[in-house]
């Protein structure tokens, strides 16, 4: 797969895995409004994944379509960042993951809208408006939980502390990103400002620095991604090629 196809695959995998994670909340969220919010975000992400994986398939040589890439690859072939595959945990963990990721994705897509690669630019332009909602939702909840009860605050601190170690990977640049023409490392200062502003409003400290955990782009995933895929891909694994 060439660099541009791999870029599309990475973008699609990030959206697909997080979309699948969020959809695990469907029917289980603490309140109806939250259930609807998370399901809506999941839907947006799966929509992005459909576009980016479809594009990856086209760039690769038009053999695999979006469904084939989503349902017929094994865990080592997934190129998503480790942050998005983290388990939902409690609501604070889900929000912390969304907070760190959506703020990154909004900046990334905003940058991609100016890409010289028109297909990437048009998907990003379509999706960036939706992602702005995700970032706002997550940031609002970080403030509400962080500046809420002792219990919600304790949980928000623990959740941020866990998710934080996966944030460095978002900004790592390699030759694949270079081919797409987006400098992910350059997004970091703007991301830091957004994160710090919400944390300040939530009266929360930035988690103490720790060594970033990486490997997702190279297919080195946690055990948890396999569990996620076994559920998501169940039908196509058991009945390959099934349609209805």
């Amino acid at each position: 797969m060439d660099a541009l196809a791999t870029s599309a695959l990475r973008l699609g995998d990030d959206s697909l895995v997080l979309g699948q994670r969020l959809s695990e909340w469907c029917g289980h969220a603490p309140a109806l409004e939250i259930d609807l919010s998370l399901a809506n975000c999941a839907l947006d992400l799966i929509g992005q994944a459909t576009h980016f994986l479809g594009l990856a398939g086209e760039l690769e040589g038009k053999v695999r379509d979006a469904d084939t890439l989503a349902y017929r690859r094994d865990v080592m072939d997934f190129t998503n960042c480790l942050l998005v595959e983290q388990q939902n945990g409690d609501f604070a963990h889900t929000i912390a993951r969304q907070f760190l990721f959506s703020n990154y994705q909004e900046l990334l897509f905003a940058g991609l809208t100016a890409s010289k690669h028109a297909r990437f630019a048009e998907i990003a332009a379509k999706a960036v408006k939706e992602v702005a909602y995700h970032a706002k939702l997550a940031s609002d909840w970080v403030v509400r939980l962080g500046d809420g009860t002792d219990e919600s605050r304790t949980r928000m601190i623990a959740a941020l502390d866990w998710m934080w170690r996966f944030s460095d990977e978002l900004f790592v640049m390699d030759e694949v990103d270079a081919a797409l023409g987006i400098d992910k490392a350059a997004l970091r200062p703007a991301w830091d400002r957004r994160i710090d502003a919400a944390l300040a409003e939530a009266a929360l400290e930035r988690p103490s620095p720790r060594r970033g955990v990486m490997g997702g782009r190279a297919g080195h995933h946690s055990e948890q991604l396999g569990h996620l895929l076994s559920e998501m891909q169940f039908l196509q694994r058991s009945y390959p090629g099934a349609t209805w």
Partner: protein
Amino acid sequence: MSALHKPPASRRSAMAHAGETSVVKIRAILADIPDPEIPAVSVLDLGIVREVTDDRVVITPTYTGCPATLYIEQAIRRALDANGFMHVRIETALSPPWSTDWISDEGREKLRAYGIAPPPKGAAAASLKNDQRAQCPRCGSLNTVEVSRFGSTPCKALWRCNACVEPFDRFKCH
């Protein structure tokens, strides 16, 4: 499209001459196709039909993951076929991205009558920064509050009117 559905050559050239009439007819057909999730408005009212010519209809999704997108395409296909426009192709375009500014004035009024507060006009660009109060579609009060930024479909947010104490949907600025 299979060859079976292709109109005969003589008919195709007649259609080319009658291009403008075809466009008017196709638009009339589209005006009768309701949005599956908000049947009060048509696909034309919603502004998701980007272009109509005598041989193609270009549509655009509202939201990236909107499950209605495929349904709408199928509904348009059925309606075109049923009215003898088997040769008209349906294409999808993502760019420029759909905005609520493309909802027609008529569409806005239909939304309001249906109980959904329409998005303010020209506000799509500033949608997140400028959270103007929605006007209650039932009593017209501006004494309203957002309950949830996300509603029963991707395009709607959940609001409540403090005056008549009724919940209502608001079409999100987008």
